[in-house]
């Protein structure tokens, strides 16, 4: 084998592996990426039932209902629109009414059936997605309590 042939094999196999990787990335992008939506986005766009989304906002005061077997229901609000969320499991320690929250799950007839609920880590930190959702709906006050440093 000449140097040229060997180099061709090397380049050919590199391109082959790269092509496989690109194919994997593209197919994974289609099936496993989750879009973030604010409650207003969900209200405005007609999303197909069963779509996987992440919703961020504040836990609407007075909306939290706890049931048996760690079932919990609450509404996420950005001040303009609300979206009801159903979840079964343990909510984070800092899950409180009026506090920032991000829920991920599937949309079923207007309700988010969540499999993950995230809250902020500490009193100074607010999920960035929540801040953006609130800013978009005009409910964000710079420098207000709970503003991230």
């Amino acid at each position, binding site marked *: 084998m000449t*140097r040229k042939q060997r180099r061709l094999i090397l380049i050919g196999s590199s391109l082959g592996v790269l092509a496989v*990787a690109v194919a*994997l990335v593209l197919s994974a992008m289609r099936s496993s990426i989750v879009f973030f939506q604010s409650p207003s986005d969900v209200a405005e766009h007609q999303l197909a039932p069963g779509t996987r989304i*992440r919703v961020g906002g504040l836990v609407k005061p007075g909306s939290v209902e706890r049931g048996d077997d760690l079932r919990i229901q609450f509404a996420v609000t950005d001040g303009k629109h609300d979206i009801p969320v159903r979840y079964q499991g343990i*909510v984070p320690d*800092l899950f409180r009414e009026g506090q920032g929250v991000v829920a991920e799950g599937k949309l079923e007839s207007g309700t988010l059936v969540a499999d993950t609920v995230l809250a902020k880590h500490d009193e*100074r*930190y607010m999920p960035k997605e929540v801040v953006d959702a609130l800013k978009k709906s005009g409910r964000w006050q710079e420098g207000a309590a709970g503003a991230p440093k």
Partner: protein
Amino acid sequence: MIPELGHYALVLALALGLVQSIAPVIGARRNDAALMALANSTALMQFAFVALSFAALVTCYVTSDFSVATVFENSHSRMPLVYKITSVWGNHEGSMLLWVLILSVFGAGVAAFGRNLPATLKALVLAVQSWIACAFYLFILLTSNPFLRLPNAPFEGRDLNPILQDPGLAIHPPLLYLGYVGFSIAFSFAVAALIEGRIDAAWARWVRPWTLAAWMFLTLGIAMGSYWAYYTLGWGGFWFWDPVENASLMPWLAGTALLHSAVVMEKRNALKIWTILLAILTFSLSLVGTFLVRSGVLTSVHSFANDPRRGIFILAILVLFIGGGLTLFAWRASALKQGGLFAPISREGALVFNNLFLTTACLTVLVGTLYPLALESLTGEKITVGGPFFNLTFGPLFIALMSVVPFGPLLAWKRGDLLAAAQRLMAAFGGGVLAVALAYAIEGGQSLLAPFGVGLAVYVMIGALVDLAERTGLFRLPLAAVRARALGLPRSAWGTAVAHFGIALSMLGIICAGTWGTELIVAVKPSQTVSLSGYDLTFDGLMQRRGPNYSSEVANFTVRKGGALIGVMQPSKRNFATRAMTTNEAALMMRGAGQLYLSLGDTKEDGTTAIRLYYKPMVMLIWFGAVVMMLGGALSLSDRRLRIGAPRPAAKPALQPAE
């Protein structure tokens, strides 16, 4: 007084760094030995001054000097001493000071231990190292001064973020930085070689120990971080494909590729240009990691500050070094002489395969990490790229890589015999198939993928043992001869086998804990018993305890298996008043290589407490495997060949001048 001393020492280090950035380069140009030798003393002095600066900051924390802004923000007089010290790097400013401290340690290391390096190469390496150091000194002094004083000193500090008050996280950042920053040496060597326009096998021999050391620290640092996340975040996950985790995984993947390609370069004088490029890319990915974590682009536990000036400054450093390094590469790489030839089926070929898959896997991680950021800044759309994406992209590439790992060491250099290697691996194939069948039978036929993964891991493990057996002549030669050959075997050969065994162990742990782990999320009343995977846990009740700077609520659970008492588990919740924060302390119980994992949720008035209970079989293998990998690296590092270094070019005129 002490903070000012620390600040002043850092300014002096910068001054020395500027001298070291310029003088040795001029010395190398003019072949002036005195100017080149200057770099040795400045590198050692830089280390001394940065160490002094760091010691000053540590003193401020230990004495709780709240007139210093970072101490006030991140410390508390009632914190235990060890956390007072670790909170030095539990914030942006202090962690950057740690970064330059480690950078200067490595620079001083090259100056002190690089006695047999050619004078010009050493001078250039130290100069490039100093360019990096100066960029970061300026970054600290201009945007993140840890010694800034407050006009009115408060009486009490605001405490360190409670999730950082943990032994695991105390040593995770220094280990990670030793890894990240260690790769700067490979970068400096690569840039120096490009400036000189010549490179040879000896170059690879000089770079390898530094890269190996950095890789070992990074391996341990990642494992440490993963174990910390596992026991502290309370839901038993060990890897979340979080951008911050990916930021440490990418340099690891590139660094692993670099270690392997440097072997080819050292032994066969081939793959030179590629090795240089990898050395530049590995450190570039370390810088990208620093940028992602430190600039506030990402929101996580790690992003301490959102000052946009810092982000832009780090971005500028990033562009300067990555852009500069790659430009220099594009300009000078063609001047490097092409190396030896090899057939596709050969040890070199196998190592090329390793590099191809590691770098491609690294690329998919990079895409998955940066794509959401790029999409958000371009279209404003926010997406999450999580576990499923990486399982579908990184997973297959890694499986392909693992299936070839045992072949590499069994193939000969230059031209290998695939069939002969396959024949020698019969035991590994057999063991793998047996493991698949066994795993399939035990799990009761739930899935085929996981038993296949177990089989693959077992095959790689036996493959590593076969490699050692072949080299020592075990089963073929009399025992005395085997012993002699085992003792005569280079440590790096042992290191290879041990490291390959380690990665397979980690893989086995990930598959077993991920597939056959069980979980139970319930609310329990006092004296109620719950069962999971044959373990019965009785909730005895809650009690209150006080820690130095927190109060905690401890739950007591009695654990029985088949009626026999095997222990008590005490998960707790700690409430830190200063920051109004709660942390979750999971209780862990070792069961062989597996663990029972119990963490607490909310408690109602009647004492009903929500719990998360997991049984994770083989989970400890994940981190144990990483430690084994690191030991493999240590064995390889102790190889005599690397310790005494390469012969001087004068004694052996092997250096190839530029064409």
